[in-house]
């Protein structure tokens, strides 16, 4: 089944599912209120903050190679090993080499989109390495054998009862549907994991170039534990996640938290400058940083698309997107969902199978209006559509149809002729369209405006 067919089928199911639609709407309206409130209460001028953030990320784009080198130099001086991964395969190979070197049998990981991108869990399973998700939402979907539903709240589609049942089955826990009790069950289960894991794997929210550090933000503390207990820490980060200076965090930490969860700042903002240093009481002996390219540098060379690399993965565009709200995260069938995912997935994975994501949008631009770093996401969707067309991915019917349409529409005479013909088509062929498509078509009047104008002109 093609990805397009799968998308159409699943999106249809969700579009018809009134209960799902209302559930998601409720979750998102709570988020909306929190976020809108925080934008007003924390920032003197949210638009000004966005402006600064956008300028900083644009600067990063302009100087990306130099900043990455600076980061590498500084953090390597403290004993971290920086590895550059061209693509998913290379990143996977680095991990397997490290796991072998350290004879690792068990890995604990915190929430990271890059690990989804490189199919990390599947890789571990295929290589007999135990991998355990430590983020509560991610743990839930892992136990359920599902993919994350949303970039920030992976299990937002699951009810308390469903989770209780899941924990009972997979963890042998006593049955409960109380959120606090369920959280404590997960906590106990995971504490055993942190202290017995050989490697802790995380992503990172930011790469700080000048001071040579990684930044990780979270609320639960599982990321901190993942970086504190196991003897080896691996961080897998996209190469675009750079900020120039540590001081930029005074803007970006509140900005990210406000857009992502409506918080002032996230509960734990950790700055990691390397593995355990001389004189420190604990911490991983070895730290590896896998800088992941996987299509980013290629996208970087396409200048009209470069802006999407400013993305700080806050999830705001997903929450704002009325399409996402209707079809949910799983329908996209990719790690990166919603508007940003619809821009980068066809670019990273090819227009051949994925261009439909860029077309599945009404171009309402809500994404662009909430993006904290001022990316004009909806315009990049348009660019993707143009590229898809140029690559011949828009299909014979649409290509022919729109060619005819543009020929007709460039002449009033032709339009009038087609309009007359169109009335005939409308009357005689309408019954052949599917019911749902037929309902969409309104009554077409006998006389167009152009025809009515004569009468009107005479009246006045």
């Amino acid at each position: 089944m093609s990805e397009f067919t799968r998308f159409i089928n699943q999106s249809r199911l969700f579009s018809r599912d009134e209960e799902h639609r209302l559930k998601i709407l409720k979750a998102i309206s709570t988020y909306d209120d929190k976020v809108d409130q925080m934008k007003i209460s924390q920032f003197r001028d949210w638009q000004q903050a966005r402006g600064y953030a956008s300028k900083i990320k644009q600067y990063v784009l302009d100087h990306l190679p130099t900043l990455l080198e600076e980061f590498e130099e500084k953090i390597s001086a403290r004993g971290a090993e920086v590895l550059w991964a061209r693509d998913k395969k290379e990143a996977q190979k680095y991990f397997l080499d490290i796991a072998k070197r350290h004879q690792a049998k068990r890995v604990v990981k915190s929430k990271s989109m890059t690990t989804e991108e490189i199919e990390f869990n599947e890789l571990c399973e295929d290589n007999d390495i135990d991998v355990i998700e430590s983020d509560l939402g991610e743990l839930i979907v892992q136990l359920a054998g599902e993919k994350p539903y949303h970039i920030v709240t992976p299990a937002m589609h699951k009810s308390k009862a469903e989770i209780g049942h899941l924990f009972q089955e997979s963890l042998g826990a006593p049955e409960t549907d109380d959120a606090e009790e369920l959280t404590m069950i997960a906590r106990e289960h995971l504490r055993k994991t942190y202290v017995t894991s050989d490697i802790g794997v995380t992503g990172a929210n930011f790469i700080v170039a000048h001071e040579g550090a990684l930044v990780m933000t979270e609320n639960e503390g599982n990321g901190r534990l993942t970086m504190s207990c196991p003897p080896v820490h691996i961080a897998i980060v996209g190469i675009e996640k750079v900020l120039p200076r540590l001081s930029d965090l005074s803007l970006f930490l509140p900005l990210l938290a406000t857009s992502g969860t409506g918080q002032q700042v996230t509960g734990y903002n950790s700055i990691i400058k390397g593995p355990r240093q001389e004189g420190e009481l604990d911490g991983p002996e070895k730290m590896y940083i896998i800088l992941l390219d996987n299509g980013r540098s290629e996208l970087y060379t396409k200048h009209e698309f470069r802006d999407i690399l400013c993305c700080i993965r806050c999830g705001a565009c997903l929450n704002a997107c009325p399409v996402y709200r209707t079809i949910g995260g799983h329908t996209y069938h990719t790690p990166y969902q919603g508007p940003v995912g619809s821009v980068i997935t066809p670019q990273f994975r090819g227009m051949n199978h994925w261009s439909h994501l860029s077309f599945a949008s009404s171009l309402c631009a809500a994404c662009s209006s909430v993006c904290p770093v001022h990316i004009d996401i909806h315009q990049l969707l348009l660019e993707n559509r143009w590229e898809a067309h140029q690559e011949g991915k828009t299909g014979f019917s649409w290509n022919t149809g729109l060619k005819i349409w543009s020929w007709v529409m460039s002449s009033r005479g032709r339009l009038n002729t087609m309009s007359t013909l169109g009335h005939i088509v409308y009357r005689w062929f309408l019954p052949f369209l599917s019911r749902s498509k037929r309902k969409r078509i309104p009554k077409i009047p006998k006389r167009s405006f152009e025809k009515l104008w004569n009468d009107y002109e005479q009246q006045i």
Partner: protein
Amino acid sequence: MVSLFIPCLVDQIYPEIGIDMAKCLDYFGYQIVYDRQQTCCGQPAFNAGHRDEARKVATKFIDVFKSSDVIVCPSGSCTAMVKNYYPLLFSDHSLLDTVQELGTKVFEFSEFLISENLVQKIQGSYSGKVGFHNSCHSQRELGIDLEPQKILQKIDDLELIQPQGESVCCGFGGLFSFKFDEISAAMARTRLEMFTSLGVDTIVTNDPGCLMHMRQESIARHYELKLLHLTELLAQALKL
């Protein structure tokens, strides 16, 4: 002298919107001109990724309107196409200067009324609980926010019930409503339900695409709602 820019959707499907706009402009004392050679701004092709086809149609548009003084359009999305996207479409083209000039002369209907200080001249009434649906293009491409509300507030007997926050998409999106019809319909339902939950009996919008889409879904699902274009409501209120 005001030139009417009649979107293809209005020309073919909702000509009454165009007539009502002409009546309103006449009421405000403007001399109106309609160039019947106009067809479409080219947006459907542009949004579908077919830029060459869009440019062909846009070239016709430019030819028709290049000498106009002021152009008024009952559609935020069509206005935005000309203002914001023609420069992109003609970026490497000899018509770029013409296009940029054209962009300064084209206005969406409510935008025009406000900029010409015409709201104070409105003397009319419409009885109903009205919610205004701001089209996404009006809001986010043209920055139109309170203009339509100001117009509606001037009308006697009209109870304006406005949802909080930014306007959410009705789901039309041009060819999106055809290619992804069920997602599009569900989005329309979400939008309609938001209005009905506020007790609205009339939804007014400034985009014919939004109007068509919401009207069809409303009819299909038997919502108790009247859906009007801003020009229709204003013409009714002014008894034109």
